[in-house]
């Protein structure tokens, strides 16, 4: 026994001694081969391509269809239209980001530096950094052909332009980084550049990308979703439209920013800018139409609209220029109607302000100012003749959403009740529900069909509208070229054309309404209202319908004012994140914030 112990003791002793002698030099060194650095990225095309993919990590995406799952769902799943006169997010779910706009309590840090806010200022520069890294080093990749490298360069340039555009329409002039910055070596405390410089740099980058023969007009199949030359053309038009529009195309900005007005406007009014926008839009349309793009125009006027923003090219969507994607089969609960069989939350609801903009198929309007009484058992009576795009955009009381499933969204004539599992308009708040983007998939829970929502970023009709608007503004009175473009959009959805002979101002209103309807809930209206400097529209009043089912099974639709909303003039441009301004390197905050 004692010997054994002695043996163990001795070996411990030896152990102890050997630790001192054996104290290895590399004891604290990281073993070779664990790290993967930038040289490894550009050592093989397979890896470099992953950096190209990563450049898209912060791509624009506005269709977070359910409450933020913690991965940075913008606005926690409410559609930005709900911050305008067209919508309202479900009020009893405070997480929806658009409530802050409705209540006028937008706080700057949330707005522009929060993954659950409207924008993350720093992400734009992250993307720009990757794009410059690619431009700087993609030529080093040994196993990729030159044509692929050229394409990646054009893609990176288009991405830089896109990110500066996304910054420009939110913030005005921003710090202009034209290369990859290395903290410690390069100056990173850059001031804001004038708006005009940012715009010019956008055009410069896009022109460079367009001039690149390695850049194709479209990428379909597995590469659908990658930037392409058609988008570069289209973005030129879109950027030009922005600087031509009233918000920027002026000598007197929406608020005075002493000494720095060049950061928030073009410093003069120049009607030429409308002509440039029209010209760029014309060039873009021409480039697209000679390279295989065409507006969707199947015989089915009740579906063309949906095809144009929801379908993929191989499903017949010929007008999608660029779209992004995020999720397969996202939960629909928050979007679904309340009550059986949907048991959803009615997260995003259109206001009557939007509904009233839809014309009947003969061009007339429904008179919502008077209570509408339906015949017994015919709840959809007032909606029957509306623009086919309405049915593809909005759910309304009595709609048979899919066979056997009716959207019952009314209150009983007597007291509303919890517990009889009846329809509960009270807890839904609004009479209408957004249907766009879920259209055709409402029965997903039953059919289990795969749903991969497409977040359309640019389609050919957008360029038509840009062209029409810019041309109308640059002419003394609209001509046939304006009408052709708009009416092509209306006709493919079965709507009559806008008559000739309207004045420039009348035409402007019609163009704005057409933007509103054709691009409803596609992230346009919030920024378009600002672009047109129509801030007062945000104020409402916001209208809804009260829907009462009478004991004789008829329905009464009564318009009522839901609320007024504030709009402050400083809302025209986003605030820079206060945390960034507080770094005190000289970043000028936008006025009012």
């Amino acid at each position, binding site marked *: 026994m004692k010997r054994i112990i002695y043996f163990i003791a001795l070996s411990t002793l030896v152990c102890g001694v050997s630790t001192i002698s054996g104290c290895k030099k590399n004891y604290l060194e990281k073993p070779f081969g664990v*790290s993967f650095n930038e040289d490894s990225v550009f050592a093989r095309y397979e890896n470099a391509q992953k950096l190209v993919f*990563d450049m898209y990590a912060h791509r624009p995406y506005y269709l977070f269809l359910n409450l933020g799952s913690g991965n940075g769902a913008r606005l926690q799943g409410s559609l930005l239209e709900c911050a305008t006169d067209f919508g309202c997010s479900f009020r009893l779910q405070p997480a929806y980001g658009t409530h802050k706009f409705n209540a006028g309590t937008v706080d700057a840090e949330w707005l522009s530096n929060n993954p659950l806010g409207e924008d993350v200022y720093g992400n734009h520069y992250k993307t720009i950094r990757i794009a410059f890294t690619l431009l700087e080093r993609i030529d080093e990749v040994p196993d990729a052909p030159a044509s692929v490298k050229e394409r990646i360069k054009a893609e990176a340039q288009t991405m830089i332009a896109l990110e500066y555009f996304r910054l420009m329409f939110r913030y005005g002039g921003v710090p202009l980084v034209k290369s990859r910055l290395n903290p410690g070596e390069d100056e990173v405390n850059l001031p804001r550049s004038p708006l005009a410089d940012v715009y010019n740099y956008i055009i410069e980058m896009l022109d460079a990308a367009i001039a690149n023969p390695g850049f194709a007009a479209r990428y379909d199949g597995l590469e659908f979703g990658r930037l392409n030359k058609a988008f570069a053309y289209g973005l030129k038009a879109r950027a030009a439209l922005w600087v031509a529009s009233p918000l920027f195309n002026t000598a007197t900005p929406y608020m005075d920013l002493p000494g720095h007005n060049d950061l928030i406007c073009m410093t003069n009014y120049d009607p030429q800018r409308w002509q440039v926008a029209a010209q760029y839009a014309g060039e873009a349309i021409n480039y697209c139409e000679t390279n295989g793009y065409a507006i969707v125009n199947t015989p089915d006027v009740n579906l063309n609209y949906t095809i144009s923003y929801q379908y993929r090219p191989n499903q017949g969507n010929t007008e999608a220029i660029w779209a992004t994607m995020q999720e397969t089969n996202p939960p629909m609960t928050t979007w679904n109607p309340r009550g059986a069989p949907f048991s959803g939350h009615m997260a995003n609801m259109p206001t009557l302000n939007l509904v009233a903009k839809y014309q009947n198929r003969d061009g007339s309007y429904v008179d919502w100012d008077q209570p509408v009484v339906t015949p017994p058992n015919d709840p959809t009576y007032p909606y029957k003749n509306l623009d086919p795009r309405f049915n593809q955009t909005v759910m309304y009381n009595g709609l048979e959403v899919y066979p056997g499933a009716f959207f019952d969204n009314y209150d009983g004539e007597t007291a509303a009740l919890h*517990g009889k*599992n009846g329809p509960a308009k009270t807890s839904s708040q609004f009479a209408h529900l957004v249907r766009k983007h879920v259209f055709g998939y409402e029965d997903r829970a039953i059919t289990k069909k795969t749903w991969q929502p497409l977040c359309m970023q640019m389609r050919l009709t957008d360029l038509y509208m840009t062209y029409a608007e810019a041309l109308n503004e640059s002419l003394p009175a609209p001509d046939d070229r304006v009408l052709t473009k708009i009416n092509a959009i209306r006709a493919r959805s079965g709507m009559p054309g806008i008559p000739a002979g309207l004045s420039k101002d009348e035409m402007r209103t019609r163009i704005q309404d057409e933007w509103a309807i054709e691009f409803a809930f596609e992230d346009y209206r919030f920024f378009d209202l600002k672009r047109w400097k129509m801030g007062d529209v945000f104020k409402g009043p916001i209208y809804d319908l009260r829907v009462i089912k009478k004991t004789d099974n008829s329905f009464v639709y009564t318009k009522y004012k839901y609320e007024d909303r504030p709009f402050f003039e400083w809302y025209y441009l986003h605030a820079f994140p*206060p945390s960034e301004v507080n*770094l005190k390197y000289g970043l000028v905050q936008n006025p009012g914030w």
Partner: protein
Amino acid sequence: MTMMLASSYHASAQNGFSLSGQVLDEEKLPLAGVSVNLKRKSSGTSTDNSGKFRLAGAQVGDTLVFSHIGYNTFEQAVSNGGSIQVVLTAMNTSMNQVVVVAYGTQKKITVTGALTTVKGTELAKSPTVNLGQSMVGRTPGIIAQQKSGVPGGDDVSIRIRGASTFAMNGEPLVLVDGVERPFTSINAEEVANVTILKDAATTAVYGIRGANGVILVTTKHGSSGKPSISFTTNVGIQKPTRLPKFVNAYDYAVLYNEAQRNDNPNATPMFSDEDLQQYKDGSDPLFHPDIDWVDFMMKKSTPQTKNTLAISGGGKLAKYFISLGYIHQDGLWKEFNKRYGYSNNTTYRRYNFRSNVDFNVTKSTVFSLSLGGYTDKNHTAGNPYYQIQNTPSGITPGLINDQIIINTNITARNPIPEISKGYDERFTNQFNVTADLNQKLDFVVKGLSFRSKLGYDSYYRTVLSRDVSRATFTPVFRNINGQDTLILQQLNDEFVSGVNSQTFNNRSKRVYLEAALQFDRSFGKHKVGALALYNQNKQYWPSNGSYTVQYPEVAIGYLGFVGRMTYNYDNRYLLEASVGRNGSENFPKGKRFGTFPAVSAGWNITNEPWMEKLLGPKTALSLLKVTASYGQTGNDKLIGENPATRGNVYYRFMYLPSVYEFQNNRVYFGEDMTGYQGVVEGQMGNPEITWEKAVKKNLALEVGLFDNRFSARADYFTDNRDNILYQKPAIAHVAAAIQDVYNIAKVENHGYEFELNWRDEIGDLRYSIGGNYTFARNKVIENGTPESPQNQLGNSLDQSYGLVALGFFNSQEEADKWMLQYASKSTPGDVKYRDVNGDGKVDQDDFVPIGFPTFPEINYGANLSLQYKNFDFSLLFQGAGNVSRVLSGFMQKPANQFGTIWDIVKEERWTPENAANAKRPKLTASYANSINYHNSTVWIRDASYLRLKNVEFGYNFSHSVLKKIGATSSRLYVSGQNLVTWDKLKVVDPEQEASNSLAYPQLQIFNIGLNVQF
């Protein structure tokens, strides 16, 4: 521990015989003034200056009692007359106590640094399962916060002398028997003592890892003698200290309608008059129920048991201590899933074992082999606390005929599915081996010795789980035969899975090696000590539940060298110098090693010969000692936010540049929509990175009065951190790079500690009373971020910032007259904020520090113990001050998304009628208006508290009883934990960290225990 060394006796006459003897202390020096009494008589005698005594009138069967202040009382049965020699052992409070220090032990009188020791017996008084909790309040300088009382998940976060660095990087180093190990799962009955090292003098030898203080846990070892068997059993009842109180269904409906009306007077109220009536009269228990969910789901109390069997003893060859422990702790949930064959309650079982054996291999060689560890089983089902707080009382009746009822009209909530979703069983095995070799090398140089230590730990965890998804039903009316008939329509299918086994963060291994040469020798009154030590530490497969580790496949390594010199002249002048030289993998070559020196000195003034001349021989002053220390320690650890995943990550190899990581699904492309992997640029690496530096000073004064019946110690300390590793010095977003880790921040921490004790006896009553008090305040001097109202330097690390509320607007006119707040106009019932910077508007630029830090600046404890004949009694009070709680979540936002409403909201909310007493703004249902929910003084609450932490009342059975069962001693006791709490927070337990109280409650424990020794 008292020993009778020798006894000889003489026969005497019938009327008693006389006894004589000598009383010595442990160093065999005579003890004067020891009282020697015969138990049955009140009279006795005391020892003279040579420790001798003589006592007449003793008889066979008498018991002699030796007692002396500062020493353990010793009883000796008289079998015959004669001369006896008795050795009294000093109580541990005495200055003669030997204390554990870094890499060794020292006599307390010679200690020059700041450290405190808590005895295992003290810790064992707390009827808690977690050792960390037992330490709260017992000693100054240690601050522990317990976040939850859930069985198996009730860990405490510990800071020594407050925080001096950011968040999780401030945790102290914990060593169990000299090896870095977790300690909270150790059975308190296995612990000899816990020592807390607080200043640079005591921690510099730990160098790069010592800055946050060090906790040394020493387990028990055997002592020579017959085998002694000790068995302890405890049975306790646990109850929540405090449970949340929510409004009933009727009040909820009324308040909800009020909230909705506040938001938009045009909106139709959620609850009609008919609804309200039904909630009020309870006429419709199906659709208008009124359920108190806390009561529905939780038991009033639940049991726990603790049992320990320990055997110790020793002979010539070996000494041993062997212990087995078993703990069982039940949770508070009621059972809802018996028919699925499992319990949904949370339970925790733990088996602890320890075997510490010391072999005397040769006369100069001791080899110790310590095996310790535990295996536990933590059974958890869902934690429905969140659901309970999210389910108002009027939504669903919960269960009908054991079927889960979901009413979808308002919100489809019910907490029962959460507790019914199956269970996890986590099995943990922790096995620690420590092998120590001590070889005296007196044959080489007198006083020289060599020792080495090998530590090997293994940790393994598996989880068995079972998923259950119970069917839910919704009540609907169907027209059957012309009658509205209620049926329960099934909403989803029932699903019960088999048992799955999963392992995650599941294993780790640690190998620790240490070798040292030590020299201790006296030259007359000069005592010299020296230590040279080398150690290395590698942890393989590092894992931690609360953060991920970069490069988990690479072992975490540390290297260290330690040197220490001590000099002591006559226990009067004390000098110590120590140095730690450590290397960390986190830093580049050349910056990898740090040298951390410390010096300290002490002066025992009472040992000066002139003191006796000055004060006379009968002075009340028995101890006067001053010590001072100064030195440097370091910290190499950074647990920060991973910018990509937003989780916490343990940074490693911080000098390595531009690491790219692969991440899946960074983008989706293709008509078929496929996710593509991206490669993400990581931190840029900082070739200049090096350790965080802590410069610590400590000044202490110790006073003993009346033969040390009164003792006191006061410390003043500073801990100035520089080069703090910090991950986000903000730079302009345009750089768009993930910033390096920098040595950039600077924090100053200072404070003081007091400890007072008085112990004495009055007749048979022995008592002691004591208290401790710690104040620590830190200030952020620099954090790499420009100063702004939201980042004001000079305040605590845990300081909250926000707006100053001036009250509430009581009318629209008042609101209109006020300036814009966050660029918006206010309405009555909104908070009116102060425009601190005077720029005519209220926004984040008006932030000021509000309230106290969220980590208490003041911590204190007070204890009382009494011993009378066979009875003993002890009390421990513990409290914290200068601490604020910021209300958040449910506490701040009632009725949020149909969440519940706390009872207190009824009184505190603003209404036109309650405007004068309002403490929170008007209710809102939509929370669309966020103006009232910015950080502000409205949401700050005083979280200071005082609580009766621990009470124990015991009875020691007399010898006559013990004889019958053959025991040597036996004690029966009752004890309690967290019995009374005095605080201002009222709504949740003041110690609970979660501000919105989404946690399992803190526990109150009533315990009864029995200890028998054979």
